[in-house]
């Protein structure tokens, strides 16, 4: 009936909590993480917090600097260009595989997440929007059925969502809906299990997202400074 609480489940649960706090922008880019404070706040041991931080470090959400402490990772436009380059290859691969391999249940769940993302955008609920956006992409990665592609995408692309969490909090609410609706052509292509159409939809959607990000970046100058 009960799940036994082992040191491993503790580590995973602590990592999950800190991850959520970063992805919802309650911890800012470049902010320092104090292990002792986290342990107190979470009611966990210092050992468990340290282990959770190793997990988050391997995900690229935080960085450890020798003798200087642990910080939330920061991301500028140069890093984002590189992440988009990887997405254009690896996420494109995942999208094609997803269109080929997805189960009916997975497609239904992807559509539910999409609808929740649109609802959150209409309600201008940026935090929920970000969570659903990230979930939506993670679901597509999983639907590829290739856990090596999925794990590489989690490591390489997930930090990007921490960055857009910050961006989205700053831009006008109309853009939330535009971003949400941008997922529709890709969803439709996966639903129709058309790998070629999915690839095309992803390529043009990704290009659009990158163009928007570039514009916002040049309009707003240094996003990290504001965050």
């Amino acid at each position: 009936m009960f799940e036994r609480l082992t040191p491993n489940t503790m580590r995973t649960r602590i990592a999950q909590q800190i991850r959520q706090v970063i992805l919802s922008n309650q911890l800012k880019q470049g902010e320092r993480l104090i292990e002792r404070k986290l342990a107190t706040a979470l009611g966990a041991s210092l050992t468990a917090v340290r282990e959770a931080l190793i997990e988050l470090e391997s995900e690229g959400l935080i960085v450890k600097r020798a003798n200087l402490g642990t910080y939330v990772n920061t991301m500028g436009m140069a890093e984002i260009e590189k992440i988009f380059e990887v997405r254009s290859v690896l996420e494109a691969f995942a999208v094609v595989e997803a269109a080929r391999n997805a189960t009916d249940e997975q497609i239904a769940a992807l559509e539910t997440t999409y609808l929740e993302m649109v609802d959150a955008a209409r309600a201008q609920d940026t935090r929920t929007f970000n969570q659903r956006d990230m979930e939506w992409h993670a679901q597509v990665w999983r639907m590829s059925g290739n856990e090596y592609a999925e794990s590489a995408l989690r490591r390489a692309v997930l930090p990007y969502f921490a960055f857009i969490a910050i961006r989205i909090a700053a831009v006008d609410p109309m853009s939330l809906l535009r971003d949400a609706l941008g997922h529709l052509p890709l969803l439709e292509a996966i639903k129709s299990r058309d790998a070629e159409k999915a690839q095309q939809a992803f390529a043009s959607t990704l290009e659009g997202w990158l163009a928007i990000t570039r514009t916002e970046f040049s309009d707003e100058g240094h996003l990290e400074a504001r965050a």
Partner: protein
Amino acid sequence: MTSDLVSDAAANGLRGRIARQIHESIVSGTLKAGERLVERKLAKELGASITAVREAMIELETEGFLTKKVNFATHVISLSWADVDKIFAVRRVLEGFAVQAACSRALQEEIDKLAGIYRQMLEAARGRHSSRFNHADIAFHTLLWSAAHNECLETALRRALLPLFAFGAIRAASHDAGDLARDADSHLPILEAIRNRDPQEGLRAFHAGWDYWYGRRRSELSGAATHV
């Protein structure tokens, strides 16, 4: 050489050193695929605390070298046919892209270094020195990934492909000098394309290499009849 294998996270003091030692034991074949790792025993062997060993093991687990059965013991990974197929599918698109990027972006010193590693590979093959060959092979590919000058791409490649290279020493030990020489030769057209800064030729050369490496791995798997 092994310091190149485990990610930047390995720079972290004691934890990193222990992680590198465990990793080297996997690459050199001291630790076998599927073997169980016991924290207490490792701590004793390495003269380190259980806490430090646990942290190193979590690092290697997130890097994909170790796997944890739910709430239970930690084992060295072992790759099934399905795993190898999946990794090679990712490899085709991701490393192919890296080769093209390296053709346009590699620095002259990186090209010289790649050529040097290629020569080491040839020498190791001639001397039938499989462990040395394997280290050179990993060095060639990891340098190729960093010569693409996209850290995000490099991270993704490490995450997806390094498990494939982990058991090379065991693998290569079962081959004769002719096989090793052909393995070494399969890298030359890629090196030449990068030298000539020809991305199209680079992709073509990589695809030829991929076909060869994939065939090799499949035949090894059927030879071993079980896991890699």
